[in-house]
């Protein structure tokens, strides 16, 4: 499959979202409220300890605000959509085409990310930056590395969601798994609190899982908390995870799809 086809699938992802653009106007409000909540929580914490966990208040506020802003880019529901496609038998539509099924879903995730960037992230960032004290990136170079890491986040979420969605082949109900994965991603990506604040055992677990590279890694780069060698290492690990998860997802789908059963119709 060539890149034109991939781009075309991304475009379809984009157009698909366009059909439901209204949903995203309400998204701006949701993200704003979330940042508000964390603003007040952290304000109370920093009132007690002005250099809590090695962060200044502005840094923590930036971590939270930009953390939510990038979540509006990388987040998608490909796992749920894929599970629905499988449970309703719509997956046959993709299986009947000479394309790699995984790449179509990951390309769709990229298309969605582009769409979110324009219609959700842009207005959300304007509102958040106007209201809260958000620091600029540490340097132009840091910002470039941050953007690269964000691309990795989109690919990570896409490849993880593809694996989760594949489980729907064997499970009659996938809701529980989707929920579990959702909260694991919210927590372990460092969206709610930086992973360095986790208790030691949880931080150790987080260290061997890919989730922290979704949110925590790009944010650390943005804030300039990493020196350049650390940035290079973090990006290398992040993209190794992308490759590994894509490879595993492809293998997993191949193994599972032999057990597919689509009854009736």
């Amino acid at each position, binding site marked *: *499959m060539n890149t*034109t*086809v991939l781009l*075309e*699938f991304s*475009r*379809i992802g984009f*157009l*698909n979202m366009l*059909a*439901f653009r209204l949903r995203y106007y309400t998204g701006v409000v949701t993200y704003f409220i979330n940042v508000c909540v964390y603003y007040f929580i952290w304000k109370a914490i920093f009132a007690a300890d002005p250099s809590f966990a090695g962060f200044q208040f502005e840094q923590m506020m930036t971590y939270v605000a930009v953390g939510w802003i990038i979540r509006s880019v990388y987040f998608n529901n490909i796992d749920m959509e894929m599970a629905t496609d499988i449970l309703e*038998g*719509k997956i*046959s*539509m993709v*299986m*009947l*085409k*000479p*394309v*790699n099924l995984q790449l179509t879903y990951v390309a769709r995730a990229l298309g969605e990310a582009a769409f979110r960037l324009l219609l959700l992230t842009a207005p959300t960032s304007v509102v958040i930056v106007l209201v809260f004290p958000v620091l600029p990136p540490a340097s132009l170079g840091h910002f470039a590395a941050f953007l690269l890491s964000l691309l990795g986040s989109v690919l990570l979420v896409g490849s993880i969601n593809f694996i989760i969605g594949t489980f729907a082949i064997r499970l009659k109900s996938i809701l529980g798994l989707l929920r579990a994965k959702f909260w694991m991603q919210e927590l372990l990506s460092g969206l709610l609190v930086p992973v360095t604040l986790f208790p030691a055992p949880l931080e150790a677990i987080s260290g061997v899982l890919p989730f922290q590279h979704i949110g925590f890694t790009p944010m650390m780069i943005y804030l300039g908390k990493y020196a350049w060698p650390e940035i290079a290492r973090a990006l290398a690990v992040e993209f190794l995870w992308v490759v590994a998860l894509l490879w595993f997802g492809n293998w997993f789908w191949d193994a599972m799809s*032999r*057990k*597919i*059963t*689509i*009854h*009736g*119709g």
Partner: protein
Amino acid sequence: MPGIIEVDDLVKEFRTFERREGLIGALTNLFHRDYRTVRAVDRITFVIKPGEMVGYIGPNGAGKSTTIKMLTGILVPTSGYIRASGYIPWKQRSEYTKTIGVVFGQRTQLWWDIAVVESFQLLRRIYGVSDSDYKARMKRFDEVLELGRYLHTPVRKLSLGERMRCDAAAALLHNPPVLFLDEPTIGLDIVAKENIRAFLKQVNQEFGTTILLTTHDLSDIEELCQRLMIIDHGRLLFDGRLEELKHRLWRESTIKVDFRDREQAQRFEALSLPHIKTEKLGELTYRLTFDREERSTADVIRQVVLNADVLDIAIEEQSIEEVVKRIYLGGVFEAAAR
């Protein structure tokens, strides 16, 4: 001539989980499950030659769709052999799907929320159809299916008939040598049905496309297919030409005759016509039933008209539905063989 689709001893089994009833049953289910194996397709063998148009019929749950899903590479057979356009569908799915087109009547192959033309563009890229081929084919499709009017509408806003036309065109955009259709005319009005049938006929004649279609509408078969396969309970009950089926099971003919007046009717009643069953329907109306093998319809009409003054004659076609219903209800082939 070798077959473009070869199926040998094909079997598909599904394992289903039997739930126990009640609270205790539900608790038992947590620890011990009873599975039941259902054989949806049971040792089917057939060969389809290039350019054939084959109808595949059977009652609901007979195994038609399961067969189609195995032939298209979605389902993996439990055992048996399939080879279609040189590939083993489930093993070489990616290469194989380039050589087939698929239409599911109940499920669109197009992207639901985007304009039809966007779907076509994507398909063009996926199959690597050249610009000139794309334009030429779209023009042809437009002539027969009249797609132009709704190309820019999202699929979800199309009527069923419009959607089916788009689906049929989409399946043939890459001009595949083999086309599978699973109930392509289901739920369509008569105009849309005619439209789809005309399109399939044209494609078959012009490009020699091999077509396998399942249907519940037997007029699809009568208009399109020279060959018919009947499946029930996963087993192939009949595989042959439509005429053969008619010859074996569809031999009864009926004509309805109206006579000018009572006198003419009495003249008719006085006749003795061997092998013809006469039934009086009204004052001047009679129904004549006979076996086509024993008397030709023309012969029967001639005898009646020569002997009595007839106002009107109507030949009543016994519907193929009746024949097929008898097959589904079982025992017909055994009876016919005797």
